[in-house]
């Protein structure tokens, strides 16, 4: 036993990295499942209806039911498909989408913990690469294969055309995506995501506004953010750019011949891409983990516990009025746990100070994901030729113009 512990301590770097990967994977897969429920509820409320309501209180067990359904459904393989590529495509899509979450930093301060007398220090975030942004773009570039191969491997006309359309759309918007980020790279001077966030610390304009890339520096990156977000929505095949996918709701699309768990893998990959893109948007344009309030306003440090307490009290009060036993017991129970957590946060000040960074990061990511779902429920989708025209004729020139103007701004006024 001691021998094993010695080996683990000798290679503690790899062991900690493995543990962090497993933890992040577990958290992200749960978040993905509940993101599907979140999307359905928000879409439903936009359309004046309730959404999933019956499976568990407020539909909270719906992702579990969906997951079980996907696992137990029949998994047909059409005749004449290339088996290897047919099985590879959803796996590639999901694996690449999950891998891109490895380079995202979630918080500023490293985590220090002590086990069995040995102290370990790791940063929040799996790796800290000097080319983190480029690695993200390379994974996005490889993500085209999941869709293209899925469409081709289905051995059918409509998936082939849907897959080709979708992959052509992804490739066109990749250009605008990468060009729109160049302004941020110029202002931060590095591809390292942590350095991009730390370059946005501090205040401007008499200490009133945070120095986020979207409003600060020699040239505020408004055009850059607009191009980036639109290109990102098109890149992840979400509404209003989801014509290749919407065809699958009506007639066909690249995932026609995929059923049960492979279909679920495609959609988990799509949600994971959504999360990655939202994380990138907050890191590059909205300051990542920096708080929008000045550091001197220390009462804003109580915002996380305030939100937890409010949510807990609401769940307590709402759960007691439920008719089913599950609602009567589970919801107030969860509410009590949240209230206790919020109280503990107020009690342990170092923990409260530590989670400020991740809290602001996750709230901003949540706002972007809400934006994504909001847009899906509100905007009609583009026709395919309109879609390609926007990508090539509007977004690409705009992003190149953004690069030019940012460089001019930096030349004239210098950084900061």
């Amino acid at each position: 036993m001691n021998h094993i512990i010695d080996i683990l301590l000798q290679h503690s770097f790899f062991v900690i990295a493995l543990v962090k990967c497993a933890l992040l994977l577990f958290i992200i897969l749960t978040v993905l499942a509940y993101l599907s429920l979140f999307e359905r509820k928000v879409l439903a409320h936009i359309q004046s209806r309730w959404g999933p309501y019956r499976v568990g209180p407020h539909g909270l067990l719906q992702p579990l039911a969906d997951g079980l359904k996907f696992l137990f459904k029949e998994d047909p393989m059409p005749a004449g498909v290339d088996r290897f590529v047919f099985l590879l495509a959803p796996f590639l899509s999901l694996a690449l989408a999950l891998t891109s979450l490895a380079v995202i930093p979630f918080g500023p301060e490293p985590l220090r913990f002590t086990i069995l007398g040995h102290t370990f220090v790791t940063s929040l975030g799996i790796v800290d690469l000097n080319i983190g942004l480029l690695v993200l773009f390379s994974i996005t570039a490889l993500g085209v294969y999941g869709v293209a191969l899925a469409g081709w491997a289905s051995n059918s006309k409509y998936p082939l055309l849907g897959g080709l359309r979708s992959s052509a759309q992804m490739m066109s918007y990749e250009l605008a995506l990468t060009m729109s980020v160049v302004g941020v790279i110029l202002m931060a001077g590095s591809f390292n995501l942590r350095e991009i966030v730390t370059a946005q610390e501090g205040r401007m304009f008499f200490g009133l506004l945070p120095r986020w890339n979207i409003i600060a520096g020699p040239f505020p990156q408004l055009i850059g953010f607009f191009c980036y977000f639109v290109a990102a929505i098109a890149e992840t095949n979400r509404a209003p750019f989801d014509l290749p996918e919407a065809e699958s709701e009506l007639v066909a699309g690249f995932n026609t011949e995929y059923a049960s768990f492979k279909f679920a893998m495609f959609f988990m990959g799509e949600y994971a891409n959504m999360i990655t893109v939202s994380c990138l948007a907050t890191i590059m344009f909205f300051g990542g983990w920096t708080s929008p309030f000045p550091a001197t306003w220390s009462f804003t440090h109580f915002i996380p516990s305030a939100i937890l307490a409010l949510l807990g009290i609401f769940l307590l009060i709402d759960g007691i009025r439920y008719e089913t036993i599950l609602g009567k017991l589970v919801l107030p129970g969860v509410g009590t746990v949240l209230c206790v957590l919020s109280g503990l946060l107020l009690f342990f000040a170092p923990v409260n100070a530590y989670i400020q960074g991740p809290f602001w990061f996750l709230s901003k990511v949540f706002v972007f994901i809400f934006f994504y779902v909001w847009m899906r429920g509100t905007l009609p989708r583009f026709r395919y030729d309109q879609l390609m025209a926007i990508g090539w004729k509007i977004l690409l020139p705009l992003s190149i113009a953004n690069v030019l103007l940012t460089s001019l701004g930096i030349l004239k006024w210098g950084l900061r």
Partner: protein
Amino acid sequence: MTPVLIVFFVLAALAVLGAVTLIAARHPIHSALALIVVMVALAGLYLLQGAEFVAAVQIIVYGGAIMVLFVFVIMLLNAGEEERTSVSRIARIAGIPLALALSGFLAAAVLRFSQAAPQAPVAASSTRGLSLLLFREFVFPFELTSFLILVAILGALVLAQREN
């Protein structure tokens, strides 16, 4: 057996396996996928040498653009599996011995010259070094290459234009 050596051997084996699959696969799509594996393995080898920017750009450009073009062409042309034809008799007899001889010559040449040559300067390994080299000393070839790409784009435009 340092970790660097282990990673090198893994990546090199992956590249060689990908290259052999590229040749031996019957369906062109499998060959294209094997070539993507080779590109990614090469990017890993560049990363092992410390050329981070080149590794990332290798995946973005080769794996994400050029190979996608290959895959599109194979998909659109609907190329089926290759037929099994009989191999020529000379290839069957002299194929493997000649391949082994070629690898032997290459290995001997590399061993002889690797002991004599000094380490190459690493001015161009970081992104900053690479960009300084590219835009100061090699700016003329850089602009010439952009001319080449412009000629290719013009050719594609002319070919794709509908005849009036």
